[in-house]
């Protein structure tokens, strides 16, 4: 058996960032795969120990630039819980609306990138066309498309506006998603490439600490939004599918887009009702977290994202650690790619929605 060692190297169009997979191949069948990460390591955790909380807040969007709101919400939540600040219903509704729009944008980009991995050219541009509307809305309210730095400890930077843009978007989204379904879901070549490929059963998913859509596509209904204080008065049903292969992960994400659109619509209703925004903003220069350890978690688009802050009472955290979803999906690659062929491997790693800034932190 002649072993060929191939570098699915850092510069590769379909690894969504700088991921290097050291593959051992027999012909085109993969014998072993060892992910090698660290090409995008910016030392977020070391930087946290050198910056005060308010200085660290804008950097937090860069941990996962496709879902920046989730990580700034995590940091704001930690400080708010530590200082026992209560959020007014309007601020909560603003946060839920922006989080769900961000989740839709991230899933849309994933659909485009996944189809581009499989070779289809046009869904990429259709998905980006919808995502562009969301990004332009983010630019209107927060000032920048992706690095929005809009959440502040105790509330939001300025009151939300231009709600009619969101209404128009939520009106046109359903039939655009139906377009994707018509174009992709029943496409025989797409089914051939994804049905039964990269099957992830419950046991390995638990063993590799996979959370989020990848886990829900394997039959486990574990959605951390259920226990979240922000989503308390929103009703939604977590998307659960049984097959657990690449196709189920794709289908779960499309259904999740529809689910998020429903939540966003409910958030809009609340925003129309609650007009008054009163938020107790903190003076950032004298912000000192009381001593102790704080754990917070949120359901990010790529799995469970959680933060751990250990503070010794001064203005800079003693230790800050992030847990991100893709970190464990990359680790899963070493098991799920065994025995797959080379071009299936690209499809399987694409279906896990791995984004490298999250892995390297």
């Amino acid at each position, binding site marked *: 058996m002649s072993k*060929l060692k191939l570098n699915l190297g850092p510069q590769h169009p379909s690894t969504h960032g700088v991921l290097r997979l050291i593959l051992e191949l027999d012909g085109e069948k993969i014998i072993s795969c060892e992910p090698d990460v660290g090409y995008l390591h910016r030392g977020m955790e070391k930087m946290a120990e050198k910056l005060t909380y308010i200085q660290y807040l804008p950097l937090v969007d860069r941990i996962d630039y496709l879902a920046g709101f989730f990580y700034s919400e995590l940091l704001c939540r930690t400080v708010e819980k530590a200082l026992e600040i209560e959020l007014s219903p309007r601020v909560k509704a603003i946060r839920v609306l922006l989080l769900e729009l961000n989740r839709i944008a991230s899933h849309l980009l994933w659909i485009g990138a996944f189809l581009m991995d*499989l*070779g*289809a*050219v046009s869904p990429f541009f*259709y998905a980006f066309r919808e995502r562009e509307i969301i990004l332009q809305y983010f630019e209107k309210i927060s000032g920048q498309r992706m690095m929005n730095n809009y959440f502040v400890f105790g509330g939001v930077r300025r009151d939300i506006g231009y709600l009619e843009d969101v209404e128009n978007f939520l009106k046109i989204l359903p039939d655009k998603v139906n377009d994707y379904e018509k174009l992709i879901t029943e496409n025989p070549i*797409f089914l*051939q490439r994804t049905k039964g490929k990269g099957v992830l059963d419950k046991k390995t998913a638990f063993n590799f600490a996979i959370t989020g859509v990848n886990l829900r596509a394997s039959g486990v209904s574990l959605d951390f939004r259920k226990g979240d204080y922000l989503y308390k008065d929103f009703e939604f049903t977590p998307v659960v599918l049984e097959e657990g292969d690449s196709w189920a992960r794709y289908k779960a994400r499309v259904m999740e887009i529809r689910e998020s659109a429903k939540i966003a619509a409910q958030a809009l209703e609340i925003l129309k009702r609650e007009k008054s925004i009163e938020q107790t903003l903190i003076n950032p220069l004298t912000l000192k977290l009381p001593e102790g350890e704080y754990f917070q978690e949120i359901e990010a688009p790529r799995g469970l994202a959680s933060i751990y802050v250990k503070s010794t009472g001064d203005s800079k955290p003693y230790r800050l650690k992030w847990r991100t979803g893709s970190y464990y999906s990359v680790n899963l690659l070493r098991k799920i790619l065994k025995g797959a*062929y080379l071009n299936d491997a690209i499809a399987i790693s694409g279906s896990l929605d791995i984004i490298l800034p999250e892995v390297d932190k």
Partner: protein
Amino acid sequence: MNYLYFLYIEFLAKHNIPQLFGDITFYVIPCCIIFAALLIVVLALVLFERKLLGWFTQRKGPNRVGFWGLLQTLADAFKLLCKENITPKGADRFLFNLAPIIIFVPVMVALGLIPYSSEFTFMNFQTNLLIFIVIGAMPVLSILLAGWASNNKYSLFGAMRSVSQILAYELPIAFVILSVAVLASSLNLSQITLAQSSAKGIFGWFGIPCFIGFVIMFICVIAELNRCPFDLPEAESELICGYNTEYSGMRFAIFYLSEYALLFANALLLAVLFLGGYLSPFGKYLSPMIFPPEIGSILVYFEQAFWLFAKSFLIIFVIIWIRATLPRLAAFDLLKFSWACLLPLSILNLFLMVILKYLTGGGYV
């Protein structure tokens, strides 16, 4: 053709150039015309594809160079000319340079075979349809050379995949060509075109009786050209550029242009075999009716060429349309699809055509 020959000899005799020189150079002129026409058509095809892909995905497509983007491919070709020709360190230098030449030569031959109009055919010998099967197999040789010589694992993968793919899709084409030859009872392309002019307009074409063959040949042509959904050898998202990863500058331009030249040649072949070559879809040619007789009789040839080009561009439009929608096939299913499904279907189609030919008592010519 011989009318033009005498004209040419007479012209040379006027400048008292010996007739021997005329005989030799007479066949060089059409080759130059073909080469020039091929370059223009290929440049137009590249732009046509990029514009169409743009419109399919709600983009504008190239529109910066020249009015409405017409000179874009010319600019690309010129840019590639100026780029440096890098040969990778471990590459097998001789084979590395030989590969682009091998891929471009057969295409020129292919274009010479096709009857552009009833008068204007270059190599009109009796079995010029068989040469197309050989033309289909030549690029494999150059892709294998390119993949092996560029000393790059990804290129080697691309070359291996393309060999197995084109091998699998060469056989159904042979059977379908056989079934068309049976229908037209001749292997000469102009004979086949004339055989399709029996009934009035569209109903005479072989596309209708031999529709299964048309679909099979269409799929095999896409597979042979390594175009989506069969573009395993140069799959952008896996093997970056497959066999032509290490090529740069003029050599890459030759690979890139030969891919489109092959696309044009195969589209012409499909048009001739199934869509009635240079016959007009309305049965009669329009130009004699519109223009007075003496101009009309010359214009007829140009109109014939126009119909041939129109049909081949229609086929190319559908190929590009398929590229815009379908994802790529998996390597294993690609081969299974051909051996298990296309090959038996094409044999069945040949069998049907023989029965049809027998039943209609040689109705078609």
